[in-house]
């Protein structure tokens, strides 16, 4: 679950550090905008922690770094799995000769990766004692796994030795999964950080401290994770033979993204990640060449970008490149559909949506670069239909007032104050101040409630909210990942934070999610999306476009929505860096 707040901007100061640039070592400097919650893959629920874990740990599959639309490719798996005739049995062969990174837990022995490790790692995901944040990805999917989980829910300790029918090792290099019902997104689930492979010895050796000692099979090593503001990864000297891809999109050749084709990765010696929460210090750091890749903060937009896709001359002269990418995400103001106000009062929900001035919000907060969301599914994912315009996402005060009256609250009379919960950063507050201002125009009083991130999550999962703001980013390119946000059985503490329940929606959803990718499924997704859009379970806000800038010397960067595996492919051109650094 890739939850993140609307925009991340919180107070802190850049620690002034000026040291001589070293042009001999191939180092990439990156930024993480949030603190990292630790290195246990089963809890990789936010994108920032996932990005860090993806440098050390690996899974069976990963998304191809260059091909679009996104395509899975084998990573630790030898090849894509063979699927039985029933469509339920997946057999995966894993690569031979893959070794875990060195760790005292292995007592000096080189530890090879075996099929058993995957069985163990997925059991950890299901272990009721560990309360993993990623259990939802496999909940009710594998034969016998839920029963195993239920069996130990009340027990003292979980027994990992139990055999599970749906999760078996056939031999040291073969795993067999058996699904309860067709689950076309299964391989996507195996590509998510939750199912990254860990070694039992390491987990046992470190016990509770495991999350601070990442030992994976990945391209980079981080000996110990500490809550500091800087993480330094070094190249894994024993990394297996893994090569930079030689295929991609047509434009990749022109963009120099295939220059390293066929070379052994990783291509750099070190990755340095600075954790800087506040927008301006990050930005000043980028301008002084202290980091290589950054999302352009909204307040610096005018300084960097002319029009929508062009860099200003100052930035161009430094060789900086701009990557403008539509996100597979949707931002929304969720209405608690189990609250008496919104439950069974569709007209009230629609009136609120109609009174929200999205054009104004787009201008103020996204520099007019976002797309007004019409439904749950964002552009770029099958199920989104460009022609579909939601009649309730227009800005129409007359209709809003009419519907509000029909909802039983003429001019807002009789309606209590609406409290919208959000994070306590500046932009989140400002976004809701504008929303509150809009609502005043039809007589609704909105109060903005600011919360720390854990507080907000708590209010959502315990249903103690009227409304809250959230953004949802795709975990994998399938509309199921979005529509599931409104599926009744997923209601809080699950991902359906709006607690929306609609039997007709649920019926269609259940039909759609077991279908393999096909025009038929796409048509069904479209139907469901457009049906639920008219119901307004959320106030749909935006599908955002993000703007990233990269320094001239950072090679092989191509925007990736599922980016936790991307960093191993990056390269740095020291010659260019040496020359250009004089300009900074």
């Amino acid at each position, binding site marked *: 679950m890739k939850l993140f707040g609307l925009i991340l901007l919180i107070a802190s100061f850049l620690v002034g550090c000026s040291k001589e640039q070293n042009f001999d070592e191939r180092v990439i400097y990156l930024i993480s905008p949030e603190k990292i919650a630790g290195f246990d893959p089963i809890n990789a629920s936010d994108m920032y922690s996932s990005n860090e874990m993806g440098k050390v740990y690996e899974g069976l599959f990963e998304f191809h770094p260059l091909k679009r639309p996104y395509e899975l490719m084998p990573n630790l798996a030898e090849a894509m799995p063979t699927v039985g005739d029933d469509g339920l049995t997946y057999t995966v062969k894993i690569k031979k000769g893959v070794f875990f990174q060195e760790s005292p837990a292995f007592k000096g022995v080189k530890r090879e990766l075996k099929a058993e490790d995957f069985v163990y790692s997925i059991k950890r995901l299901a272990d009721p004692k560990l309360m993993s944040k990623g259990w939802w990805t496999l909940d009710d999917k594998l034969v016998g796994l839920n029963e195993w989980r239920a069996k130990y829910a009340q027990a003292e300790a979980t027994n990992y030795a139990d055999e599970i029918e749906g999760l078996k090792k056939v031999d040291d290099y073969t795993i067999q999964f058996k699904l309860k019902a067709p689950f076309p997104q299964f391989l996507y689930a195996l590509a998510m950080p939750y199912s990254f492979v860990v070694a039992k010895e390491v987990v046992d050796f470190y016990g509770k401290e495991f999350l601070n000692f990442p030992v994976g099979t990945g391209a980079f090593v981080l000996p110990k994770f500490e809550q500091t503001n800087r993480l330094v990864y070094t190249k894994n000297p024993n990394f297996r033979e893994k090569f930079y891809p030689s295929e991609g999109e047509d434009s990749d050749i022109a963009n120099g993204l295939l220059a390293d084709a066929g070379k052994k990765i990783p291509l750099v010696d070190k990755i340095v990640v600075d954790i800087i929460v506040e*927008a*301006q210090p990050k930005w000043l750091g980028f301008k002084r060449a202290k980091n290589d890749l950054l999302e352009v903060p909204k*307040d*610096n937009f005018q300084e960097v970008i002319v029009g929508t896709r062009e860099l200003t001359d100052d930035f161009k002269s430094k060789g900086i490149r701009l990557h403008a990418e539509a996100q597979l995400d949707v931002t929304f103001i969720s209405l608690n559909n189990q609250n008496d106000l919104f439950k069974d009062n569709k007209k009230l929900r629609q009136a609120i949506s109609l009174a929200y001035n999205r054009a104004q919000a787009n201008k103020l907060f996204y520099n007019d670069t976002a797309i007004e969301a019409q439904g749950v599914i964002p552009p770029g994912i099958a199920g989104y239909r460009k022609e579909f315009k939601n009649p309730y996402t227009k800005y129409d005060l007359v209709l809003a007032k009419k519907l509000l009256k029909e909802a039983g609250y003429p001019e807002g009379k009789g309606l209590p104050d609406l409290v919208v919960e959000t994070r306590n950063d500046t932009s989140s507050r400002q976004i809701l101040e504008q929303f*509150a*201002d809009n609502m*005043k125009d039809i007589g609704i009083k909105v*109060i*903005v409630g*600011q919360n720390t991130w854990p507080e907000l999550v708590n209010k959502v999962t315990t249903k103690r909210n009227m409304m809250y703001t959230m953004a949802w980013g795709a975990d994998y390119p399938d509309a199921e990942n979005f529509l599931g946000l409104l599926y009744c059985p997923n209601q809080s503490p699950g991902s359906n934070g709006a607690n929306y329940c609609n039997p007709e929606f649920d019926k269609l959803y259940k039909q759609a999610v077991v279908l393999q990718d096909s025009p038929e499924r796409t048509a069904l997704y479209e139907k469901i999306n457009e049906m639920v859009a008219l119901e307004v379970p959320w106030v749909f806000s935006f599908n955002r476009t993000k703007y990233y800038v990269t320094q001239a010397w950072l090679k092989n960067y191509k925007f990736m929505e599922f980016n936790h595996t991307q960093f191993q492919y990056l390269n740095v051109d020291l010659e260019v860096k040496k020359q250009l650094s004089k300009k900074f």
Partner: protein
Amino acid sequence: MKTNSLWVDAFRRLSRDKTAMMSLVIVIIFSVVAILSWMGILSAGWSQEVGGSNMPPSAEFIFGTDLFGRSVFDKVIHGTQIAMSVGLVTSLIAIPIGVVLGALAGYFGGWVDDLITWFYTTFSSIPNIMLLISITMILGKGIFAVYVALGATGWGSLCRLIRGEVMKHKEREYVQAAGAIGGGHMRKLFIHILPNVTHLVIINASLQFQTAIKSEVILSYLGLGVQGEPSWGTMIDDAKLELARGVWWQLAASTLAMFLIVLAFNLLGDALRDALDPKLKGK
């Protein structure tokens, strides 16, 4: 020889001090502005869109406009109302607690003193801002929580001061005389001793006031203070982002207002101490 009472004397001393008078004038102006704003005469339209987004200061908008085209001047005025009300209400909560507990501890000594001393030392050993944050977490956010949080945490130093002063006074002859003619504990404490320590309360109140204002700004800056209306803290929070695009007027206006009132209260507090407690002068 004609003698003046302490208060007349003190006022005479105070009125000779030009800085103190300036400070007093500033405090009065801020108070009047706050009252007018509270009555809805000033800044009632702070939430109205009056111009374009982020317009710089001009003849029409002396402090410019904010992101939503609202007048920054009106927001500063409304922020003044919030700040002054926080100062006033928290003083009204903290001072009685501090005075009563301090007086009881100082007068009775023994286990009463032990208990109250333990209480305020414990309170003051907890980092202030942490305590404030936890109180607002429990009470929920909003101005009410800010009043309670600041009021409940602000009495420690006054309590200690009053305790010491009462201890000193209770051995004095006039108190013993009051006892000799049959005055009870309460009479001695509240009729005889307390009036002799009121000057401390006044000095402390002016310091209390500005501490509360500063704390409110910090809490609002962190998103824990007033919700849904402008405060100097939220304006500074806004400015944090806007400065990057050269929007300096929200920051300037709110910090200027805060600077003036905090400085005025500080100077006034010093001058009051000098005027009311001449023995301390220069110390």
